[in-house]
């Protein structure tokens, strides 16, 4: 019911890549048992020791350059129930706005001590937390002088098939919001949910600033049965 008020449309022509890649036929309504199909559960063994610390998990000869931050929050469903054991996979540009991806050609420096990838599982109350470096803005080829606002990519596994969310977390007050068609593709009333909140009381003195990003996944319209 809230999907069209929350998610971007499949076709958003200002984001040019959607033009040839968005379905043109109406999506098929599916039975609840498909919506309620359980996704795999990822065990604690899936987490490496430094997966939740992007400032440490790729060090070669020193510390990564940039502003150290902690990103934390909860994964909930629409009724406010915490989702434990949700897998969050994370990737981002470095402080200079450069991705390590081989296809990235932006003329900004790589950081030998920063990869920009990590993962975390939520705990029993749905909480997660990781350390990273605040990513920089970067240009892209969508239109003349196009720049992406600072953002961290999230891939989320909740418990059910319709809880397989991929999203991006932005930072408060970014002047590029108004010019970014990916951010702007989001319905206006839902955009602020993509923006993390600065939390002074969660900052760590002499160490890291803190941002809170709550992730809310589809709830259940009926109680699913375990099969």
């Amino acid at each position, binding site marked *: 019911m809230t999907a069209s008020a929350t998610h971007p449309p499949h076709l958003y022509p200002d984001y040019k890549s959607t033009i040839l890649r968005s379905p043109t036929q109406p*999506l098929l309504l599916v039975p609840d048992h498909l919506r309620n199909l359980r996704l795999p559960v990822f065990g604690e063994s899936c987490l490496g020791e430094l997966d939740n610390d992007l400032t440490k998990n790729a060090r070669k000869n020193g510390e990564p350059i940039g502003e150290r931050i902690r990103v934390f929050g909860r994964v*909930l469903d629409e009724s406010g129930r915490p989702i434990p054991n949700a897998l969050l996979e994370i990737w981002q540009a470095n402080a200079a706005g450069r991705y390590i991806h081989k296809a990235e050609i932006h003329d900004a420096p790589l950081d030998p001590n920063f990869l920009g990838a990590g993962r975390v599982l939520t705990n029993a109350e749905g909480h997660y937390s990781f350390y990273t470096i605040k990513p920089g803005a970067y240009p892209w080829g969508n239109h003349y002088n196009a720049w992406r606002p600072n953002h961290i*990519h999230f891939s989320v596994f909740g418990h059910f098939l319709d809880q397989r969310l991929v999203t991006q977390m932005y930072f408060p007050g970014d002047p590029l919001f108004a010019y970014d068609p990916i951010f702007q593709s989001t319905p206006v009333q839902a955009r602020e949910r993509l923006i993390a909140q600065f939390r002074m009381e969660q900052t760590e003195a002499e160490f890291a600033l803190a941002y809170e990003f709550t992730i809310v996944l589809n709830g259940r319209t009926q109680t699913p049965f375990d099969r």
Partner: protein
Amino acid sequence: MNPPLLTPSQTVGPFFAYSLTARQYGYDYSSLLDAHLADTNRDKQIILTGRIFDGAGNVVNDAVVEFWQPEPQHPDVIDYPRRPGTFRGFGRLGTGTTADHSFTFTTFKPTATVTGDAPHVNVILMMRGSLRTLYTRLYFADEPEANAHDALLNSIASERRTTLLANQIGVDTYQFDIRLQGENETVFFDL
């Protein structure tokens, strides 16, 4: 307290590989998931392969494809590293590392589920230019009887049903191409 509001979807973008499919693309990071839903040493392996085409007929070389085949024997939790000889049921590949940008998963032929659905694999698709996760299903063209009784297939107009059928192209190999637009546009689900 008001109930929390759904988090909007955003595109996976072009630069996911060093996180989501690091090993496949040669990055120095671990990968929880790979091309093998079932262990490679198991008997009766099948191969599910395909490509993704955009509205101009070009092959998509920067998609992430996930295959999810729940079976009675799938494990309670996914362990890393994977335990040899076990069925996992979940696989993930990017389409950027093969010359023809195909994806190729190994598994065994799915069984019909307790809901009476025909043998199938759930398909989850993400890519640059897609602002939402796309969902579809792979069914098998060589299971006409089971398919004829499948409620989800039957809810699709007959001329579009074939877009969900994988065709046998070799002894144990099935081809499942995904078309994002145009003639034979794949049926995607409203999830």
